């Protein structure tokens, strides 16, 4: 009794459905009349519809279909945004998120035990990734200067402590922040585009961005128009991001989705791809101004998105979870997510950041604990 012959070529992923690759439509934009791919709300990874969608999130994409020429691939994806309907079809063709699986995966990665030297490495890495943030109506120049000094030398008692990645302030405080971190590698990030609501005319948002850049911001944190996104006006969101991208010039652009307002994981995945297609240098979870901010699950989802985006286009995009990360333990869990999902290439403050303020103090206390062997207390770090 012989076993049946394998149904698929050996090189194809085992669960790829549909006809051989050559028979498939290469891009959705070239097949406007084809049936839209079925919504796949709880489909496991890999069992995706045909066409460009099937390439999304596939482990073996690089082996089978990955064009090694990045610009050609990027060109292929630019067609996606050629019209509202193609963009919608692309975003809605992304495979649905298995919410239970996603949260389970995020939770299981959170159980890794990181100790001793690995912990010391993780804490120093996390300190170097902190975007030290103050976004309050009560921000004073004095507070911003203090924050800048803290970002440059987080622990004055130990010069070996790495600097934070950046200070993140409102546009009118950029010049003050810039002066406070002058001469160091610490960047100045500015929120813009009518942060945090984003409810302002485009002209006002762009003026906001230009002002921030003119005052010396190295990075711009923009918010997307959640209202337009939720109403399904993806092209409007896309155009706004590209306009801001242009206005921010050489500054790196972080796009904030406010995941707490997007309601579903599917929306977060769509927003991530939309942001990356429109030219974001970073995708960022949230403003820190709503009830639900960065969670391990939504950050994991965005890490998957940047991994797959690079696999398809060769373009690397950074990720910044922001808000609600307060303890070293949480920060280390996020670093595990990064390493296990996007990979070691993202374990650098050029590609991964924490938007936080109180997190830094906890990291410093843990660092002191590792150095001295005794638990430290809030009396031994600066109060913001």
């Amino acid at each position, binding site marked *: 009794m012989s076993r049946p012959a394998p149904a698929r070529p050996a090189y194809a992923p085992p669960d790829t459905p549909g006809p051989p690759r050559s028979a498939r439509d290469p891009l959705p934009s070239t097949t406007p009349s084809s049936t839209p791919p079925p919504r796949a709300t709880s489909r496991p990874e890999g069992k995706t519809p045909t066409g460009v969608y099937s390439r999304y999130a596939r482990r073996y994409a690089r082996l089978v279909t990955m064009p090694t020429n990045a610009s050609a691939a990027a060109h292929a994806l630019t067609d996606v945004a050629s019209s509202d309907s193609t963009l919608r079809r692309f975003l809605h063709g992304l495979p649905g998120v298995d919410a239970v699986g996603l949260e389970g995966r995020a939770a299981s990665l959170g159980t890794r035990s990181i100790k001793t030297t690995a912990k010391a490495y993780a804490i120093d890495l996390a300190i170097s990734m902190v975007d030290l943030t103050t976004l309050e109506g009560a921000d004073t120049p004095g507070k911003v200067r203090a924050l800048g000094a803290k970002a440059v030398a987080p622990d004055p008692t130990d010069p070996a402590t790495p600097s934070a990645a950046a200070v993140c302030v409102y546009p009118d405080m950029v010049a003050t922040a810039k002066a406070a971190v002058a001469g160091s590698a610490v960047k100045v990030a500015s929120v813009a585009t009518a942060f945090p609501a984003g409810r302002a005319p485009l002209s006002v948002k762009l003026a906001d961005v230009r002002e921030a850049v003119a005052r010396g911001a190295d990075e711009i944190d923009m918010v997307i128009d959640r209202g337009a996104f939720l109403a399904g006006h993806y092209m409007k969101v896309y155009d706004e991001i590209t306009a801001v991208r242009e206005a921010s010039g050489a500054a790196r652009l972080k796009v904030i989705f406010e995941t707490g307002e997007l309601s579903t994981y599917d929306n977060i995945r769509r927003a991530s791809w939309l942001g990356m297609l429109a030219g974001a240098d970073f995708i960022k979870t949230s403003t820190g101004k709503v009830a639900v901010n960065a969670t391990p699950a939504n950050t994991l989802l965005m890490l998957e998105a940047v991994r797959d985006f690079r696999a398809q286009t060769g373009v690397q995009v950074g990720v910044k979870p922001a808000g609600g990360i307060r303890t070293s333990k949480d920060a280390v869990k996020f670093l595990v997510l990064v390493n296990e999902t996007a990979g070691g290439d993202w374990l650098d403050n050029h590609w991964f950041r924490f938007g936080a303020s109180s997190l830094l103090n906890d990291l410093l206390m843990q660092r002191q604990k590792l150095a001295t062997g*005794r638990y430290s207390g809030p009396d031994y770090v600066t109060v913001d």
Partner: protein
Amino acid sequence: MSDKSEQRRLSVFKTYKLYVGGKFPRSESGRVYEVTDSKGNWLANAPLSSRKDARDAVVAARKAFGGWSGATAYNRGQILYRVAEMLEGRREQYVREVADAEGLSRLKAGAQVDAAIDRWVWYAGWTDKIAQVVGGANPVAGPYFNLSSPEPTGVVAVLAPRESSFLGLVSVLAPVIATGNTAVVVAAEQAPLPALSLGEVLATSDLPGGVVNVLSGRTAEIAAPLAAHQDVNAIDLAGADEVLARELEIAAADNLKRVLRPQPVDDWTAAPGTDRMTAFLETKTVWHPTGSLGASGSSY
């Protein structure tokens, strides 16, 4: 028939847990140890706390300190009275636990529990009186008001006495929290059950979570990180032996903790005095000018 079914009934064993931050967690380490009565019979498994449990307890105590020390002395007194009321309601349980732990007769254990509840009431009464007794106006040679008032020290680690599992525990814990401190209590290693049960009473007595945190386990293992902890302001070594007390005192010197050395107590039922309260109070003295005395002819 009914007799048989009653005989077959399996008794429900109680899972003793820690009391940290108003919640009842198991030890972070997942460990437990066997607690036996004075004759060596198994009573229950108690959590074997690790240094991380101690750390979590300090965080909880620190968080609770602002609210508890800022509450009015009268309000603190009312809450402590409430604790005494709750203790009274569960008197039978404590009598049983104390009798098991210390090998006492029902009668003697009952006397211990009564004394402990009375002591709690006694300290509850002190909350709004201690300031008059140890603070006040000081006479100074100048045109100033000079006022001293006692303030709580902060987070106090308390090693419960080994020889008296309930009365001893209440005698060291109540004075600490009566004056507005928050406490991390390390229960007596051999007899932790009354202390763990006390957590259940505290949780239902309007006492804010984190004001008292109860840990059980090896005293030496938990006390060492507490003594070295930079965010603990004082430590009461009542439950430490001579050698351990010396080690802990050295570790505590690092951040200038207030240390209360083990005080020999022959009889826990004797009147305690105010020493245990004043041991964890700091005196704040304020100088205030009385105004231009004489220049304006004012009388003050």
